[in-house]
């Protein structure tokens, strides 16, 4: 029984995972003494915690996640960005113009307008308000060029790979720069059209085959094949 529990298993909502008194992480609830999965995914019981790696579902903002958003509207002193969630990311004017400043709408529009794409960090996320995003750090801010594509947020870890192996493979063989948001938005930019198309094809392939094994090798093969 112990051995079976430590293995990753496919689970559905309501499926029993374990009775061990472990720390509950993502996608599990406690019903009495039984730990139950709340979603379709892979159960992962480690030494001190239990979780389910979800195979579907929307993005829920978590503090310090790096996300890509598109500006949807300007309201009062803030921008509202689509971050592929059920909530809109709120970017305060003060975050961009500095503390105590009260920019006019036209000033704000000049800096970031509707449809602009930003790379941002989730600064705060609670149950009361829309998640607060920030572009005040290094590497964050408006993304000027590139192709925006969307994949399900649950497949982002697969795209990055173990210690970034997958994304490095794609970047190295296509000379593309890939900016990945935890929310499932990805911006690919590349000077060569061929490299851009190849990188896009690779990402789509990962999206379609995320559940299969040896994906890194398959992507490598595909990139090499197209290169010849």
């Amino acid at each position, binding site marked *: 029984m112990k051995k079976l529990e430590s293995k990753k298993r496919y689970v559905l909502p309501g499926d029993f995972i374990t009775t061990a008194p472990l720390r509950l992480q993502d996608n599990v609830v406690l019903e009495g003494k039984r730990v139950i999965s*709340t979603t*379709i995914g892979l159960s992962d019981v480690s030494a001190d915690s239990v979780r389910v790696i979800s195979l579907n*579902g929307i993005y829920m903002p978590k503090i310090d996640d790096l996300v890509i958003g598109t500006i949807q509207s300007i309201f009062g002193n803030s921008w509202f960005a689509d971050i592929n969630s059920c909530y809109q990311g709120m970017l305060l004017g003060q975050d961009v113009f500095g503390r105590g400043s009260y920019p006019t709408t036209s000033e704000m529009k000049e800096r970031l307008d509707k449809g602009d794409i930003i790379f941002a960090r989730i600064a705060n996320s609670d149950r*009361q308000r829309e998640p607060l995003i920030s572009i005040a750090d290094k590497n964050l801010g408006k993304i000027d060029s590139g192709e925006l594509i969307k994949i399900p947020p649950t497949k982002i870890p697969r795209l990055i790979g173990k210690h970034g192996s997958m994304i490095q493979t794609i970047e190295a063989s296509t000379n593309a720069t890939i900016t990945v948001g935890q929310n499932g938005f990805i911006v690919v930019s590349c000077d060569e059209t061929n490299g851009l198309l190849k990188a896009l094809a690779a990402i789509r392939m990962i999206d379609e085959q995320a559940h299969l094994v040896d994906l890194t090798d398959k992507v490598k093969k595909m990139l090499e094949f197209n290169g010849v």
Partner: protein
Amino acid sequence: MGGRETDVVLLDENGIRSDGRKVNETRKVTIKVGVLKNADGSAYIEFGGNKILAGVFGPRDVHPKHMSNPDTGILRVRYHMEPFSVSERKNPAPSRREIEISKVLKEALEPAVILEKFPRTAIDVYLEVLQADGGTRCAALDAASVALADAGIPMRDMVCSCAAGKAADALILDVNNEEDQAGQADMPIGYMPNLGKITLLQLDGVLTTDEFKKCIELGIEGCKQVYEIQKNALREKYFSSGDNN
């Protein structure tokens, strides 16, 4: 309902029902997951002659805004019968019956769905009955539960549903249209199989206390059979490439 006169023999001397089933046998159930591209989650169920499409959207913004709840998400269910779903054209406007079924299905799903995770949002479940053959609310609930799981909405358990009832003085599982019209009782049951909790229980007809208890047991047996089919449908979509279960 209520033992209307009929030519159909509901139960013959061998204990076989009008459509050839035994008393404790359900109709053939097939479920397909992910049939609608534009919905976040979807399912199609064929429950005997019933054909029902379920589409789930959300969590998403609530409109009108005043319906939203700052503490929790809300669940909205619309059960609707197509004009061509029954032999005589049905007016497509929501009828008294459809409004009631929408309400009871919402309440049958609410204990399972973890709405507290999504304050200020709504989860919409649309159920379209394409063809009706008795027991549509049970079939619709089965499809809704699968579609919710397909949309990745966190749930404490799946909800499965099956009716039990009484016709020709015998307790029967999965009441069909003739048995519903001419039988003595129809009792739809919604059930969370892992938690062992009933989320939907209605009764149209007359049963003694003893019959009532037996009917619930019979209905739960039917629910468990449907649950296996629901699980297989979800497994087929998500885990078909390699089964390590």
